[in-house]
């Protein structure tokens, strides 16, 4: 029944999605990359090639802020990989225990922070960690550790790590759920075969389950990477656009926002903002490519 004329129903089915997606996502994305090559001179747009990037990476006024934001962003990501994902895997491993009661209840409760907005999370933790209110020092005092307390969000050396841990607290539910789902797909026979060979308990986890869930850990890593290098909201709600104290919590998202919109005395600059967005695009693209071509193809998948 195939005819050579255009099948209009296919066009009708595809057109709305393609139009919205192209016009609002893909076109602005490439337009932003293009705008990074321009600058504004006397109210008109002038093509300057890669000058904005030279300024961003080389000009001492800009490059300090850029490398600071990039390094902070890397540290933010490292904390997530080292804390969030292991905790998520641990919780999932416990939850997937076949005889565990109340598993659904724990699962739903632990997922609650993930559904709350950054505004709630940011302010709630700001209040709890605040030395004025005294919940955190009070609780440390109760266990005799009051000397450990410091105004963590106000100290340059702790603020970023503290915020990264708050973000970990918020998002631990996602690796937990994905790993939990992966663990459920491991057939009972595989585990029983291991038991016959004397592999039980923790060693069954390390030797049988962990290798089988590696692809899911890969997916979680790349989701964490993209999420972290595009983060903004938590830092903005907790520390404001200036990402204080003294820019110690500045990450690429807040740096781009400040550059684009301006703050205090500095005027907003859409072209430098685009240059930073382009840098973020490059970083995310490199990460995704490393994952797709370097990691994903090497992970062995097992079909049961």
């Amino acid at each position, binding site marked *: 029944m195939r005819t050579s004329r255009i099948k209009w*129903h296919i066009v009708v089915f595809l057109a709305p999605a393609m139009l919205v997606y192209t016009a609002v996502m*893909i*076109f*602005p994305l490439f337009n932003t990359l293009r705008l990074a090559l321009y600058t504004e001179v006397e109210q008109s747009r002038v093509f300057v090639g890669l000058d904005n990037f030279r300024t961003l990476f080389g000009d001492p006024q800009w490059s300090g802020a850029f490398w600071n934001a990039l390094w902070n962003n890397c540290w933010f990501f490292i904390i997530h990989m080292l804390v969030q994902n292991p905790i998520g895997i641990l919780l999932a491993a416990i939850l997937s225990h076949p005889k565990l009661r109340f598993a659904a209840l724990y699962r739903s409760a632990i997922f609650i922070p993930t559904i709350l907005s950054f505004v709630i999370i940011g302010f709630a933790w700001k209040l709890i960690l605040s030395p004025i209110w005294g919940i955190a020092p009070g609780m440390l005092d109760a266990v005799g550790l009051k000397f450990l307390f410091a105004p963590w969000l106000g100290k340059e050396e702790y603020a970023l790590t503290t915020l990264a841990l708050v973000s970990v607290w918020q998002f631990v539910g996602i690796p937990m759920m994905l790993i939990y789902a992966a663990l*459920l797909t491991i057939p009972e026979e595989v585990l029983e075969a291991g038991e016959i060979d004397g592999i039980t*308990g923790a060693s069954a986890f390390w030797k049988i389950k962990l290798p089988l869930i590696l692809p899911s850990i890969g997916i979680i890593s790349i989701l964490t990477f993209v999420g972290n290098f595009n983060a903004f909201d938590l830092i903005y709600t907790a520390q404001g656009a200036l990402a204080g104290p003294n820019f110690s919590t500045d990450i690429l998202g807040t740096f781009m926002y400040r550059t684009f919109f301006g703050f205090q005395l500095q005027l907003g600059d*859409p072209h430098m903002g685009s240059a930073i967005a382009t840098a973020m695009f490059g970083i995310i693209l490199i990460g995704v490519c490393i994952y797709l071509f370097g990691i994903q193809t090497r992970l062995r998948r097992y079909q049961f």
Partner: protein
Amino acid sequence: MNKARRNPVNIAAAHGILILYTLIALFPVFVILINSFKTRKAIFRDPLALPDAESFSLIGYQTVLKQGDFFLYFQNSMIVTVASLFFVLLFGAMAAFALAEYRFKGNTLMGLYLALGIMIPIRIGTVAILEMMVSSGLVNTLTALILVYTAQGLPLAVFILSEFMRQVSDDLKNAGRIDGLSEYTIFFRLVLPLVKPAMATVAVFNMIPIWNDLWFPLILAPAEETKTLTLGSQVFIGQFVTDWNAVLSALSMAILPVMILYVIFSRQLIRGITSGAVK
């Protein structure tokens, strides 16, 4: 069944860890909620105590309701979220059907083109999105937000839905064709009802990020009459930083709608994640 998996000590340790982590997860929410019902004095004197007859107060809520236009914000968030979900589901399902059902030139290419958007965050294009919205006069309208969230949600929606549409039996569709149904009727009458569970999953996945987003409301629609609940509470709390009663009440009011949505949809959400819809 082996000994290790029946060991009561292990089970107790498992419950211990889970209870500990559940407490860590819920503690901040709990502290905010109980303190929002207390007088200012009681908030500072004993932050961990439940409100009692003496310390109970609704002063914070009164301030919030008097000063902030939370019903308007709530309404805006509702409109944006519901409209975006509607378009993501409708357009996403239509495109998914076309990609899953018909063989035509460029099918794979279009699939890949849409898949681009799964990994690349839409925020990267913000500068040009704002420029476009300014030149088309859509700044400070809810339409701008709906467009952005629709575009943002479509790639994953098409990906998930086309997986499910491939499983719909060909015999059913062909039977419909023999009965003289048009392709549109086949899609809306036969296929859509069968992929309802997948549509629900997509809706739940999209709902929370849209509701909670701060970036686009802040940039595209910061005007008073278009503020979403997330942006509205952010601005309100920023203004009332020193009024702890008001801040705690505003936070509690922002928590409430999300919690209600979560209670209604949590089973759907968890089933969606664990059924491997995002693999």
